[in-house]
């Protein structure tokens, strides 16, 4: 099963982990420093003065950062739940059953990950205007499904292709209703996939900019929108503080679900992207 660790594989591992940390953490370091800086100009390596001004502003009621944080959490959570509700049955159909035109359905589901978001959203925008979904939170949640659903569906299709439907037949035969069969038999088997797919759906929704801007029409201000407006206005300290708040949920979710990410079958679905 496991290879015996050798000096070579150990040092290789060490280098890999070190590189990963460098790439993941290093870009965030200036952001963190900026959020506590007061006057940090070239060629200084560290800021001249330190200050909590940016944090005080970001966490105050007037800035609207916290309001925007709750709104973003609400939108991403809603998009995630909807993705799960649609992605689980869709993934089951793709992973477990053969049907005519299956490859076209797969391609259609994958399409949003290939086609640029701006191209997709322009068409949807005119449709949403006519049904009054533009400038609304439900409209933004719905449009977030475009990039989140492919991830959810593909992860679940990977999970279901490894799931033996005879387990469900066995449960039915032993006297379980379809609902109980799902709860006691299917759900425990696919839960790692739901967690991994849900995590990705949440993070994909969390980082949407263009789709939120177009459909929200500037009325639905999520964190990325707020962050961008501060970044373009040259307030690097406040941008740093909001940036730190912005990456926090991702890190928390990652830590909570790290255990499930190691499941090979759960990540298997990504091989198809």
């Amino acid at each position: 099963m496991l290879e015996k660790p050798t000096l070579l594989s150990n040092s290789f591992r060490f280098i890999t982990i070190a590189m990963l940390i460098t790439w993941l953490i290093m870009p965030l370091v200036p952001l963190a420093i900026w959020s506590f800086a007061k006057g940090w100009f070239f060629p200084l390596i560290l800021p001249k003065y330190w200050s909590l001004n940016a944090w005080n502003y970001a966490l105050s009621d007037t800035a609207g950062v916290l309001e925007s944080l709750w709104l973003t959490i609400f939108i991403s959570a809603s998009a995630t739940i909807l993705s799960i509700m649609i992605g689980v049955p869709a993934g089951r159909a793709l992973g477990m059953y053969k049907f005519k035109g299956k490859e076209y359905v797969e391609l259609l589901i994958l399409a949003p990950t290939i086609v640029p978001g701006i191209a997709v959203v322009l068409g949807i925008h005119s449709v949403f205007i006519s049904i009054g979904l533009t400038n609304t939170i439900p409209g933004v949640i719905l449009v977030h499904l475009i990039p989140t659903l492919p991830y959810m569906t593909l992860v679940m299709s990977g999970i279901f292709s490894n799931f033996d439907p005879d387990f469900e037949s066995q449960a039915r035969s032993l006297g379980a209703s379809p609902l109980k069969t799902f709860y006691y038999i299917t759900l425990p088997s696919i839960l790692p996939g739901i967690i991994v797919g849900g995590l990705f759906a949440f993070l994909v929704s969390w980082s949407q900019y263009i789709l939120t801007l177009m459909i929200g029409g500037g009325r639905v201000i999520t964190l990325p929108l707020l962050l961008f407006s501060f970044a373009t206005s040259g307030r690097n300290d406040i941008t740093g503080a909001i940036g730190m708040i912005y990456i926090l949920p991702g890190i928390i979710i990652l830590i909570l679900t790290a255990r499930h990410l190691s499941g090979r079958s759960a990540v298997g679905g990504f091989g198809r992207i």
Partner: protein
Amino acid sequence: MTHVSIKNLTKVYPGLTVPSLDNLSLEINSGSLTALLGPSGCGKTTTMKMIAGLLDQTSGDVTFDGTSILKEKPENRGVVMVFQNHLLFPYMNVQDNIGFGLKMRNVHKDEIFNRVIKMLDLVKLPNMENRMPKELSGGQQQRVALARALIVQPRVLLLDEPLSNLDAHLRFEMRDLIRNLQQSMGITTIFVTHDQEEAVVLADQVALILDGKLKQYAQPDVFYKKPIDVVTAKFFGGQNFIKGTSKNNNFSSNIGKLALPKDCLQGNGILTFRPENVQIGKGPKSVNTIKAKIIEKIFLGTQTRLKLSIKDEVIQAIANPNEVDEKETGIEIDINIPPSCLWVINN
């Protein structure tokens, strides 16, 4: 105790034109153990799944004690199917696996526990209730699967290849266990197998299904003594088939005239007899003694297989090694086939 009646049951899978099961009709007695025998893909498992409600039939009916069950949902049929690969729920320990059916019937926790413990004793797995399925051997998993099915006291128990995943020595144990539990609980049981020996040893009645069609439905010994056709005889290891004519309890063919038992078919037919019923050089000359030449002799340890030629025909015989030790290839011997061992198949 439930009498199962299968009437013209047919299954045509979508996209196929040939039915996978074609007009199967069987009467299965209450409390009996019946084997559905046939090579893989002959429609056996399809039949089981339709009885269990896991697959829709194309036409036909299945009744339990005269009442059709086909409109009932699988969970309400009183049928439990045990799948070939055990399918123990991997997230549950042995106790929760066995108790699953009772839990679904809302039986109280304490009673489930007591009944699980009793069931574990019955299948000879005491003190195993906290093990996880992956910690069990194949034989143990099979017994847990059996216990999980029996604990709900189904009207009908369906077993899909119950012995096929087991090692030889475990097969005997499992066979006896299935037989004993089935008899003591009196549950009408249908099992599927591709192994004719398994069917013969375990079942009260055997239904041979070939290419989706029922060939013969009878007690095990009938398949050896009175096979319905050549294919059936061959499936059970029959090797001797001689064309000829049956008239007045005699069979005339290339090998001469042989006396038949009383209830044989008249007219043109095929004479068949088991290789093990050919007697070599036995005692006083009686009816049906013919001269045959040994053309091949293969020692198989506990028995010797002989290829004999009688005029233009070649027949197979199995003899006790002692009887043929000194008889070399090429010599002519007297063989004797008792009339009761002969049978005529419709041509």
